[in-house]
Structure formats: C-alpha cells, structure tokens
C-alpha cells in the first residue's frame, strides 16, 4: 500500500472510531458488497484495450455506436395503451406531439393471452392493462393517421407476436409502406415469459418454432425489424437481482441465437436484429455497470461462442424501462424522483431507447398529466443536464470499471450454471431461473420488513392518511363497445376467407412451413386473435403454470 493510501486508511479508521459508519456493511440492491473507495489497485488486472476500448468498437463497453448521443439521442419511447384503439390512437398522437420519438404499444390482457374481447376469459379485462386489439380492424384504428414509414413502433407482445407483427405489416401496406421499409420491434421473447412475465400460450419447444419462423421471415422480408427484444425488465420486476436479470437475459439470448442457427440462418444474417430490454432500478451505479457488463459479455459470446464476423451481430442494442417495482403507492410524487434517477442511470449506461414510468403507475395506467411529466424527465435530461454531451462520461472511473468487472464475473457464473444444466430451455423445465427469482423476491421483501432496506414512504418517513390522487379510469362501457365492434366485424367479413385462411394456417403449423405468410393471410381475412391462436392451440397444445413459490 502506498503511503498516501496508508494515511487515508489511518484517518478513516480514526474517523470511524470517533463516529461509527452509517452501516457495518454496504450492499448493493442485489447484495454485492460495495467497496468504500476504488483506486488503481482495484483495476490491477484491468486492461484498457481489452476491457474498455472505444465506443462502437468491440467489446463495446463504452457503447454500441461510435458517436452515441453526440450523434443522436436515445429514442424517447413511452409504453402506452388503454381502452379502445381510438383512445390509444389519441394518446399516441398526444405523445408524439409532446416530443416522443418512437411508439410503444401496450396491449390489454386478452390480446397478450390470445383471447378476444368477447371471450369468457376476457370478462372484466377489456381495455384495462392496455389497448384492446382483436382484429386487424383495431390495428388500423390504432395507427390511423400515423405514418408507419416515419415512425418506429415497439410492440410488447409475446406468445401472439407473429399475429401482431402480421397486423402491423398489413396496416403499413394499406398505407402504401412496404414491409421492407417498416421499422420496429416485437418483444417476442417467449423464454422470459416462462421465467417471469408469464404471458405464454404454447409450450416452450413449439413457441421456439414460431420464433424461428419469425426470424427467418423477417431476415428475408422485414429487414429493419428487431425480431426479438430479449428482456431482463420483467425478470427484474418479478424480483430478481441485477446479476440474475443480466445473466438470465443473456442466457435467453444464447437460446435464441442457437435457435436461429438451428433454423439454418447464418448468425450474421439474423443476430444484428436481436435487441435487448433492461430494467433501470434504483441502485444507480449497479444499473450502470450492469449495462456496460451486458455489452461486453454479449460481444464476447457472439464472437467467441457463435463466431459472428459482422460487428453488428456483437452489438447489444437495448431499450430501457425504469423500474415499475421500485415505485410506491404511498406518497406517489416521490416516484417522479425515482424515475428521474433511474432514467439518468439508463442514459449514463448508454441505452438506445427509454421509457420513463409515470408517478401514478402503482395505482393505475398513467394519466395524461403523469405521462407528460415522465416524458419531460427524459427531455430535461437530454436538453438541460449535459449528460448526453460527452460519450460514456463514467468510463475509466475506478469504481465503475471495478464494479463492471464484478458484475460480469457474477453474471457469467449464472450463465455457466445454465450451460451446465443443459441450456436455458432445460433450465426452465427444471424451474431453475423461476426459483432463483422467487427466492430473491422473498429475500428482498424480508429486507424491507426488517428495515434492513429502506423504502421511503413505506417503511421510513411514513406519513398518515393520504389524499387519493386522480387516476385514470377505464369506463366499463368500453368492454361492451369493443365486444359490439368485434361482433359487427365478424358479421361483415367473408366467412369463406376466414375458414380458408385458418385451414391453411393449421396445415402450415402441422408441417414445417413458415407460419408467417399464413398468419398474414389470416390477419388480412380479419380473423381474430383468438381464432388464430385456437388453431395454434389445437396443434401445439398449451402450457400450464408449474406454480413454484
């Protein structure tokens, strides 16, 4: 130890003898011990060229583009949807007018689960968690007067992703925009559904076949489309640690790359269009190091494990959403602060796209006022704070680089364990990630209960009875309105077109034909989500919750 450091340590110990530290040990939100100070010693094994390098250059620790935000800001893309397609079309136009730069569709539960608004499973659910989309007609209304050659759209849809993608292509074509021009993303990450978000329909192997078909189809015909948004957000929301979020997401990614290769597509043909989606939780530095470690690990996996040659295959591009699970129902205004800090972490971590939560989202879907503040949060970061003006400003920080190394190390341990179990699909069958997450969630709750972890307004700085704030209400009449619309649509379409397209879809599902052209055919015949999914349920079967807890 050099003499200056020795002196500091002596003075530190003296200071702590006079007044003990706030805590005996400082742990990150995920349980990583936080060193009190990092310096050159913590980076003794660190190599600038190998571990840091330059933005846009392998291993991309500093960012996936050479210019990062000097060239172009991240896309401001607020996840949004409620009520009917008209309601949501209005909100989209509002958000675009307020400066949002990309669209993001939240569908209601029935659509996510492959059910129609008039299904017995949909009673009480219509338009509540997102926008009701039953057929192509709803999609047409959803994007009415929104030019699909000028805006990119992300759709949070998984088990029925092929159907919504087909609808989007059909809407674009009606606008005169060809499928090779449209840009956007479907989440289409079924593996994390079994692990965390739980909006599955079919069993894992059959679901992977559908994804394979989408990968092949888009590689050929929809080249600007991000075919999968390989997600950690939901894994984190389900209660995982940051390390688990990172590791399970990348393990899912490995699963998808293997699937694409198995389908016979060259890795450099489809990998550039895989994208990622991470959470931005409240432990500021932990999130930043997570993003940097993510890029570096993925780059190395793509190069060394999958022998990608094109650098675009090695670039981990990601969207971020601030952590819904970190927000509180108590003193909801505090959530504006949480979201701002989390958004800052995402920006300093180099995200390509960002959604900021609204302060009322622990209570309901966002009001217009609340989502405006959330959007302004991004705009203030971008325009006023200067944080977007130097590329990777935290690069080279002893603390940040040291913690990035540790995050990488810990995540790789999980990835190796999943490999040892036989890969992510096998790990899911064994319940491995699901149980890890449930364990971590329970541990965190215990930490809140004992007060070991503070949550302002909930277990610390509690205030009494609060005046309820105005929240967004979905009128129950919306459900009947949507059911009526669906009924009218079914009465006006060609039943021959419906039965023929569903028949050819079934044949394709039973064979190894690519499903996408047949899904497109069904969608254009105005088959409903449930009609299409029921055909696939008949062929593929369904998956039941193993109910671990």
């Amino acid at each position, binding site marked *: 130890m050099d003499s200056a450091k020795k002196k500091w340590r002596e003075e530190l110990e003296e200071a702590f003898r006079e007044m003990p530290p706030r805590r005996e040990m400082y742990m990150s939100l995920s349980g990583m011990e936080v060193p009190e100070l990092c310096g050159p010693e913590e980076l003794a094994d660190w190599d600038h060229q190998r571990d840091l390098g330059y933005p846009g250059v392998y291993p991309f620790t500093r960012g996936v583009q050479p210019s990062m935000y000097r060239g172009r800001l991240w896309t401001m893309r607020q996840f949004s949807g409620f009520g009917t397609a008209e309601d949501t079309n209005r909100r989209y136009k509002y958000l675009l007018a307020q400066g949002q730069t990309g669209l993001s569709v939240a569908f209601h539960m029935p659509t996510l689960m492959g059910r129609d608004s008039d299904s*017995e499973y949909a009673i*009480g*659910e219509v338009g509540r*968690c997102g926008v009701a989309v039953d057929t192509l007609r709803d999609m047409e209304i959803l994007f009415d007067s929104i030019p699909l050659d000028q805006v990119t759209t992300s759709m949070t849809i998984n088990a029925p992703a092929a159907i919504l993608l087909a609808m989007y292509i059909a809407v674009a074509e009606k606008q005169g925009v060809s499928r090779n021009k449209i840009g956007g993303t479907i989440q289409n990450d079924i593996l994390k559904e079994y692990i965390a978000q*739980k909006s599955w329909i079919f069993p894992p192997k059959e679901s992977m076949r559908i994804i394979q078909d989408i990968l092949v189809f888009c590689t050929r015909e929809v080249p600007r489309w991000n075919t999968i948004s390989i997600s950690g957000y939901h894994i984190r929301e389900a209660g995982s640690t940051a390390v688990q979020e990172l590791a399970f997401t990348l393990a899912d990614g490995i699963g998808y790359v293997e699937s694409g290769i198995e389908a016979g597509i060259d890795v450099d043909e489809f990998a550039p269009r895989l994208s990622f989606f991470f959470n931005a939780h409240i432990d500021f530095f932990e999130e930043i190091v997570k993003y940097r470690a993510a890029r570096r690990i993925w780059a190395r996996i793509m190069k060394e494990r999958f022998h990608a040659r094109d650098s675009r295959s090695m670039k981990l591009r990601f969207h971020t959403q601030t952590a819904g*699970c970190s927000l509180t129902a108590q003193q909801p205004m505090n959530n504006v602060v949480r979201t701002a800090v989390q958004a800052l972490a995402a920006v300093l971590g180099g995200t390509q796209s960002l959604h900021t939560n609204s302060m009322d989202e*622990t209570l309901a879907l966002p009001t217009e006022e609340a989502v405006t503040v959330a959007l302004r949060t991004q705009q203030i970061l971008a325009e006023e704070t200067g944080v977007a003006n130097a590329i990777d400003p935290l690069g080279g920080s002893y603390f940040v680089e040291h913690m990035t190394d540790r995050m990488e190390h810990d995540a790789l341990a999980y990835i190796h364990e999943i490999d040892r179990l036989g890969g992510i699909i096998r790990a899911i069958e064994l319940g491995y990630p699901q149980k890890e997450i449930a364990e971590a969630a329970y541990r965190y709750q215990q930490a809140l209960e004992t007060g070991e972890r503070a949550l302002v307004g909930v277990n610390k700085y509690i205030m009494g009875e609060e005046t*309820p704030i105005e929240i967004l209400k979905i009128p129950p009449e919306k459900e009947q309105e949507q059911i009526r619309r669906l009924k009218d649509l079914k009465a006006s379409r060609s039943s021959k077109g419906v039965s023929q397209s569903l028949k050819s879809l079934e044949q394709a599902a039973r064979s190894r034909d690519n499903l996408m052209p047949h899904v497109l055919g069904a969608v254009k015949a105005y088959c409903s989500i449930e009609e299409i999914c029921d055909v696939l349920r008949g062929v593929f079967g369904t998956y039941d919750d193993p*109910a671990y*807890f």
Partner: protein
Amino acid sequence: MAEKRIRILVAKPGLDGHDRGAKIIARALRDAGFEVIYTGLHQTPEMIVNTAIQEDVDAIGLSILSGAHNHLFPRVLELLRAKGAGEKIVFGGGIVPVEDIERLKKAGIVEIFTPGTPLKDIIDFVKRTLK
C-alpha cells in the same frame, strides 16, 4: 390429537400474470404455520372455487393486478355461495383503487391489501380472522 391447521388457498384469478406478490404471500403464510395451496396463474373463478372446496380451505386470498377485480372478486364470492361454501373467508390484494375497495368489502371481501402492506399485517389479519 393434532390440531387441524388453518388451510389457505392463494389464487390468481383472470389473465393477470403478475405473481411476485402472490408467491411471497403464499410463502410467508406457510412460514407463519398455515397450510398453503397456491393455484398458480390463469385461474377462472370456477377453478378457484372448485379447488377451495376440494382442498377444504378456510380462506382464499385473491391476487390481481390487471384491473379486473371488480368482476372477478364478486364472481368468486357468488360461486362460493352458490356451492354452499359461503363461510370461507375471502380476502384479496394487488392493484385495487380505494373506491373499489369499499364496494368490494360491502360485497363480502373481508380485507384488501394494497402495495406497501407489511407481510406482518397480512399474517396478523389471517390469524385474527381465522382463530
């Protein structure tokens, strides 16, 4: 003779897939000494009531975050009564706006626990109510 332990069904009605809270409640209740059955996701009210009767539970905890509580919670109560199981205690939790809580309690949901509720409060409620 061993005392019959209190049996609780933790259930996820509807299409909602958010099960973090339900799983934590199920585990906490089990750790507190209750016998807990967890239904898993995507249960219809019919499935929940049938399981509750089959498993001869004393109470049912319904977890919902999708906004469909105004239909699903009363439907469970309705079916329990129709099947002669109306004495089972039904409580709930999740994302339920204040004005809906009052209406649901009038309908017969004994208590609704919203975000930020300490586990201790829920466990104490169960102990108190099912003594």
